[in-house]
């Protein structure tokens, strides 16, 4: 998955440009041995568009790398904020491949959208205990079958002001509460298997990227794979994302820069200008009143 806030960029450049771009990660993700064949969702906010608070939305269950409609549209849109997700699912017939399960999720008129990488172990058993934390307004909007949409509904329910512009501190607080109640419900059900909750949330202005795992390092014997490495989440910052000196990057130094690009893994083979969001932490990019509305980026430990 991928998130961006900053100066307007070509959606095509971000989705397709680099050698390990998000769309290429459909079949060529490097940090998770998985094909991401179950569709793609893109939200892109453009200040010059009609109703600029509402993003362009594209959701399709086609294999992203073959999606000609997306390619054609991406070349026509520039966005100052983006959230995109290629969906990877287990390779079996129990999985539901449908549009309702495509990330990012966004309930109707609310501003905040969210995408998720990972899965909650035992979700089908403990999800009904999570229902009490979801406001009816949001519970009735759940259309799909994923744990991700439920996490989104809980997050929305804990926001003090879910319908207006998102207050970044309110968002962080809601995130902490969301993780806390999930941890409690897991404990009540005796679930100790490692479960990743890497999230990206964006309202077109504030971007939050979360790298979090419940019970990281707890695994079944002979099933270590997927539990020994913390699911990845990387970011880079600077200006003017594009091809500079033969390299896809944000450039121009960090000082005074205004753009932040986050991805579940670096979009280039050379990872030099990318760093990880730390484990058990959130990267929050918002506008600071003290900085006359310019963006600031901070890393906040998730003390859950």
């Amino acid at each position, binding site marked *: 998955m991928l998130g961006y806030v900053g100066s307007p960029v070509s959606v095509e450049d971000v989705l397709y440009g680099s050698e390990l771009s998000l769309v290429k990660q459909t079949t060529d993700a490097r940090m998770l041995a998985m094909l991401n064949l179950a569709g793609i969702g893109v939200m892109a906010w453009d200040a010059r568009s009609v109703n600029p608070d509402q993003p362009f939305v594209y959701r399709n269950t086609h294999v992203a790398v073959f999606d000609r409609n997306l390619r054609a549209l991406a070349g026509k849109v520039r966005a100052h904020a983006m959230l995109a997700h290629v969906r990877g699912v287990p390779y079996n017939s129990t999985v539901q491949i449908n549009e309702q399960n495509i990330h990012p999720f966004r309930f109707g008129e609310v501003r905040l959208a969210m995408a998720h990488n990972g899965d909650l172990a035992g979700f089908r058993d403990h999800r009904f205990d999570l229902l009490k934390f979801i406001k009816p307004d949001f519970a009735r909007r759940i259309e799909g079958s994923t744990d991700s949409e439920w996490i989104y509904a809980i997050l929305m329910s804990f926001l003090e002001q879910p319908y207006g512009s998102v207050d970044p501190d309110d968002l962080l607080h809601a995130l902490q509460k969301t993780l806390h109640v999930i941890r409690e419900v897991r404990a009540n059900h005796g679930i100790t298997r490692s479960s990743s909750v890497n999230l990206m949330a964006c309202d077109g202005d504030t971007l939050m990227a979360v790298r979090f795992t419940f019970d990281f390092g707890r695994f079944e014997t002979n099933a*270590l794979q997927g539990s020994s490495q913390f699911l990845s989440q990387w970011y880079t910052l600077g200006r003017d994302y594009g091809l500079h000196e033969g390299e896809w990057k944000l450039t121009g130094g960090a000082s005074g820069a205004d753009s932040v690009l986050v991805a579940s893994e670096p979009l280039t083979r050379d990872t030099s200008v990318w760093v990880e969001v730390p484990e058990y932490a959130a990267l929050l990019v918002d506008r600071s009143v003290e900085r006359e509305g310019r963006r600031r980026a901070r890393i906040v430990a998730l*003390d859950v």
Partner: protein
Amino acid sequence: MSTSLITRLSNCLNLEPTILEGLAVIASPFAIESGEFIFRQGETAIGMYVVDHGRVQIKARIPGDDALSIVELGEGEIFGELAFLDEEDRSASAIAVTAVTGWSISRAGFRGLLHGRQPVARNVLECIQKKVAGRIRQTLYRIIESSSVINLQRRTSVVSPRWSIPEASIASLLETFSTTGLMLVPRWVNLLEQCHLVEISRGARFDFDEGDEGRDSLLWVLRGAIRECVARGDELEQLWVTGPGALGAVVGFVDGEPHPLTLQAAEDSLVLALPRHRLAHLEAQDSLLAIFLQNLIGQQLALAQRRVNRHLGRAIGLHRFNHVTDH
């Protein structure tokens, strides 16, 4: 040429010149002009370098396409030594500040000496590990001095870790982490005989008193996760998290000084603790197991070096993004 190389290395690594003679065979001289790259970040690492004359700057790129100067090295210093510890690509670039002459020692040649059980290889590797531990400490000092503090963890638990003698059944768990068929259960039982088992709950810290045997222990995470942190008053600035199969407290274990970082359980965890003085006993008892452990220690040390550099780059990048005025 080789006499000078041996002298340089002897001084740098604090080893007897006679021990180092075997290394001269696999060394090649190099000369490079001021401003040129000796190697670039992201390239495949092919070996280690020794400076005879001149100055070399080690730099890493950080977010924003900025550069972070890590260290500047002069005559008699080594660089690129992580190539001897792991298989990763270069994590930084080396640039000649002045015209530089020196020697390169290839990874392949060094591995040949190591596999041939040449004493020089083992001695040099131990010294390189201590050198890397020292450099990690230097970077940690910069992090501690930095005004840019990120990712502070507050959670603490008053529950003390529980130390016990590991049961033999733990050997089957250890086997999960083995990447080689040579590491069978009986071999792990040899290791367990030298170790303590530590059960530690989420939020609890490893607090060692002076003289505690655990103070100088290598910590091998079996289940759960341990975070390594810089202490900031009552809070902890997390640098990285170590998961199953990986080692914690490596820096202190390698250089024999108190480990510079505070360790806290990020999850309810099960950890194997190997006191440093028992490693020698293990080496005498089972050399193959000792080699396996030494390789693992080298890899974790190199990873720790990369992680402290990345943490510094992350903190500096965010500081610049947030605090410096517009161009």
